């Protein structure tokens, strides 16, 4: 039996399976990925690959018990690790620039907006699962909203997570630096962030904000 298995393994080196081919251009086209510039295309591919490989990155703590999903937030998965992994620094990828109406058409829901005036920029991700709202004033703020996705986070062992309420909805405040895998970028380091759910939409607010400031902005969301 051992010889037969050995021969079968050896056969792998010579068996004439069809040559590898690049499937990605067709996949990209069907996902609606535009090709504005080569570097962006590369970044998109890298981001998709890294996002897909995030399971590997998130497998750093093999213990299942380290995965925290007890905050009543279906769209948030937090993994506690002993040491945060190094994440690559790659060009930022924001997705497709759009308007509020455009985002609503693509996502199937109207993005909630904070009481900060119109966003400076609005993007949807390439799979049309999430919207990204960027504000410059009064602070640089990044808001993401999704109804069918999940935010994945890695926090270090001593990070103190705090359960909070946002207008009667469950939320979590992550006060310190952590790794986030979202819809727009490769896994990256993030500062403090607030996550909460509202009417089936998971929202994420990131910026140089105190907990009180973040909660005040979160509670101002409408409609």
């Amino acid at each position, binding site marked *: *039996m051992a010889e*037969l*298995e*050995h*021969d*079968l*393994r*050896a*056969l*792998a*080196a*010579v*068996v*004439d*399976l*069809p040559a*590898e*081919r*690049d*499937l*990605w251009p*067709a*996949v990209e086209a*069907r*996902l609606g990925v535009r090709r504005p510039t080569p570097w962006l295309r590369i970044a998109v*591919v890298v981001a*998709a*690959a890294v*996002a*897909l*490989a*995030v*399971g*590997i990155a*998130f*497998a750093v*703590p*093999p213990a*299942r018990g*380290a*995965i925290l999903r007890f905050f009543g937030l279906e*769209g948030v*998965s937090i*993994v506690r690790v002993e040491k945060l992994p190094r994440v690559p620094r790659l060009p930022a990828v924001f997705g497709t620039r759009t308007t509020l109406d455009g985002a609503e058409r693509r996502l199937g829901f109207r993005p909630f907006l904070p009481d900060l005036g119109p966003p400076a920029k609005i993007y949807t991700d390439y*799979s049309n*699962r999430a919207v990204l709202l960027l504000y410059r004033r009064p602070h640089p703020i990044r808001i993401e909203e*999704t109804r*069918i*996705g*999940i935010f*994945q986070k890695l926090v270090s062992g001593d990070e103190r997570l705090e359960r909070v309420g946002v207008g009667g909805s469950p939320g979590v405040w992550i006060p310190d630096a952590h790794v986030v895998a979202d819809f727009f970028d490769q896994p990256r380091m993030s500062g403090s962030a607030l996550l909460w759910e509202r009417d089936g939409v998971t929202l994420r607010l990131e910026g140089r904000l105190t907990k009180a400031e973040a909660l005040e902005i979160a509670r101002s969301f409408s409609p």
Partner: protein
Amino acid sequence: MRAHQAIAFRTAYVLAGDETDAQEAAQDAFVKAYRALGRFRPGAPFRPWLLSIVANEARNRRRSAGRRQVLALRAAADAAPGDAAPSPEAAVVSSERRQELLAALGRLGDDHREVLACRYLLELSEEETAAALGVRRGTVKSRLARALERLRAELGEELDG
């Protein structure tokens, strides 16, 4: 994602038995995997998850094409005189033995041929093979043992006969 396209395509080829179907199945699987990323369980290995989607697409195509006997395996052409020396792996299996093995594989039933192809030709792990074939790991083990027995019988290598 791109890093997985070779194994996705080859797995689809083994299960669909046709290059065009395999290419379409792998592409469809990537699109579905990308859109289903939110359902991917953090901490779970990624490749089995992707391969299970690929395999579903490939099997659906094979079914809709009504193909039964699939995967005509061939050995790559033997090196012509003057070519680079064959790889050490290729060199240890004679050309005649290769043809015997491939012919015997071709005579096996789909289940047996597929489990052998996944484990030995695609070099998938047990977990990946289970995902690709849509069965439990224990089934992979038992099916593999039976497939090897069957293959030995086809090769006339039974211990008792």
